[in-house]
């Protein structure tokens, strides 16, 4: 009871607090990236009439700047002398406190957590406020609470010039070259990978920007590992360098959103010693509209659209993300896909539903998918007339993903060529899920390979493995679930060559495949509007 009285007393320090009704307090710092991410989401609740109060641990000037730049619409007050912080004792910020009508805390949410925000919204009778695929991560830890810092005095220390996760950024700098400077050599030296690029002149970038209705200064995402701001203008500059056409901006914007999705974990993908490179998979009507290639040589240098979109992604990772192959990108052997790694599904030759349907979209949706991928491993099978021998050939390659005795932690993309897909479909596998189940149930590593305690990779994890019998042999099962095996159909209609592409570390502890919708062409959306 004493605590309740005291808490009510503390709440009276907030001029905007209205007792007798539920309230949501959020304690934050202006220079905390997680606070900058989280606080705008609460505008929706404030707009719906919920009593939301921001409590800033910083002084007036940075707090005012924060409110303006983040577009905060609910009252924000200063935590003078850290009075409220010392009372509620958040260990990190942001921390949200849902107060009941008496001022008692009924729920606490630490950091940025979409599921938690949506739960709080539901508890207040409101619908989802943090959609899954809005480009923000599902979860992001916060920063240490200011009141716990050793120098925290009685007044909010404040951050003089907070580095805000702003939604708009200043224009990119202009670089003027002297007449005797070769622009190609300059860009090769300053901005390129190991191949020449088209100089991103102000004129070329202006033309590229006609491919989007978004403002050039809009920040689409922050690309790891340097977390550079990918503004629309900088995306356009890299698109120019890669040889893209303006209409490809329609794909590059959601591609950057996918890249910055915390589930994809581009930070780890870009810094690992593994082979992983982001593989772009394009589905839907956009393939024909923009000329994405999905037939012979689909992984090769056959199409300007595939090659330039894949290269634009790689240039953005280098230039904006800072993942330079001679620096923080520590891949031991690298991956030729780091020049460009972009394919489209050959949906016309796919007897099953196209891949974007597996990813929760309809066949009429255009999508872009990112997978942290090794290079393709070939699977040749030219004599089998039925599905099973083809699938068993694929199982043998699937069994070696990552390392043959390391199981359960990885995923794979099975790339079926049209001839194999047709044979598989016509000889008993008219349901794609059955293909996935067969591959799952028939991919394993014989237990005899673990007989000698030689310390090899994966042998220490045997207690976690599942036993299974495959063609009479006791094995450990390779994958943790059928869903760890993704299946697409692409490539030319002649040639019985499929491929298996191994993953990096997967699941919440690694990189998860992400799929984002590609909006309709501008003209179409304008007509619709």
């Amino acid at each position: 009871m004493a605590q309740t009285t005291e808490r009510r007393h503390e709440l009276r320090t907030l001029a905007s607090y209205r007792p007798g009704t539920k309230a949501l307090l959020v304690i934050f710092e202006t220079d905390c990236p997680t606070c900058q991410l989280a606080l705008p989401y609460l505008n929706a609740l404030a707009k719906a009439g919920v009593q939301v109060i921001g409590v800033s641990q910083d002084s007036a000037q940075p707090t005012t700047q924060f409110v303006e730049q983040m577009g905060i619409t609910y009252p924000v007050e200063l935590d003078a002398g850290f009075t409220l912080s010392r009372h509620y004792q958040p260990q990190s910020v942001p921390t949200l406190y849902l107060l009941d009508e008496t001022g008692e805390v009924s729920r606490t949410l630490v950091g940025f957590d979409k599921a938690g925000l949506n739960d709080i919204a539901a508890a207040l009778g409101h619908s989802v406020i943090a959609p899954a695929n809005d480009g923000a991560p599902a979860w992001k830890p916060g920063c240490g609470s200011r009141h716990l810092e050793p120098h925290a005095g009685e007044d909010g220390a404040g951050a003089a010039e907070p580095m805000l996760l702003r939604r708009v950024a200043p224009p990119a700098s202009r670089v003027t070259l002297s007449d005797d400077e070769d622009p190609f050599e300059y860009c090769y030296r300053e901005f390129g990978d190991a191949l020449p690029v088209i100089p991103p002149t102000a004129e070329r970038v202006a033309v590229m920007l006609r491919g989007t209705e978004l403002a050039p200064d809009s920040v689409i995402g922050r690309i790891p590992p340097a977390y550079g701001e990918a503004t629309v203008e900088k995306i356009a500059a890299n698109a120019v360098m890669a040889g893209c056409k303006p209409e490809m901006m329609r794909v590059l914007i959601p591609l950057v959103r996918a890249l910055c999705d915390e589930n994809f974990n581009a930070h780890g993908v870009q810094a690992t010693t593994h082979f992983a490179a982001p593989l772009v998979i394009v589905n839907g009507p956009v393939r024909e509209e923009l000329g994405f290639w999905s037939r012979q040589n689909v992984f090769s240098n056959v199409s300007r659209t595939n090659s330039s979109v894949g290269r634009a992604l790689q240039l953005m990772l280098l230039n904006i993300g800072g993942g330079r192959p001679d620096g923080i990108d520590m891949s031991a052997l690298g991956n030729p896909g780091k020049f460009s790694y972009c394919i489209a599904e050959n949906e016309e030759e796919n007897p099953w539903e196209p891949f974007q349907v597996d990813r929760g979209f309809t066949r009429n949706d255009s999508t872009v998918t990112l997978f942290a991928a090794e290079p393709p491993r070939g699977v040749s099978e030219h004599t089998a007339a039925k599905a099973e021998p083809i699938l068993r050939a694929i199982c043998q390659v699937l069994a070696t993903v990552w390392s043959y005795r390391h199981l359960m932690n990885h995923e794979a993309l099975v790339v079926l060529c049209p001839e194999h897909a047709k044979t598989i479909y016509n000889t008993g596998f008219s349901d794609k899920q059955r293909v996935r189940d067969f591959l799952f149930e028939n991919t394993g590593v014989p237990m005899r390979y673990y007989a000698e305690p030689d310390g090899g990779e994966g042998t220490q994890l045997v207690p976690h493995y599942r036993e299974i019998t495959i063609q009479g042999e006791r094995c450990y099962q390779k994958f943790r679930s059928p869903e760890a095996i993704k299946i697409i159909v692409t490539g030319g209609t002649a040639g019985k060559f499929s491929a298996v592409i191994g993953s990096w570390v997967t699941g919440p502890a690694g990189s998860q495949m992400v799929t984002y919708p590609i909006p309709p062409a501008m003209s179409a959306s304008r007509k619709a509007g």
Partner: protein
Amino acid sequence: MPLTLVHPGNESKPQAAPAPARLQSLKGKKIGLLDISKPGGSFFLDRLEQLFRERYEATDIMRVKKPTYTKNAPQSIIDQLRTVDAVVEGLAD
């Protein structure tokens, strides 16, 4: 005629943090050993802990472990490490 390019890269300026003063001795100091969850990391840190205790008389050793080596340490881990005098991060591979 001079050519004008649009800067395509990250133009933010990283802020350097000053290095803390070097410890003159490890005797009686609290040492944090951060395991990033790579296979084999614990063997390396076990040996390091033994050396700290036997050779340098650092008797207060705090072992903490990241949930995954693929991502940044969560705030709770960083908060724990704020309480020590020095940290050794056990990178693997």
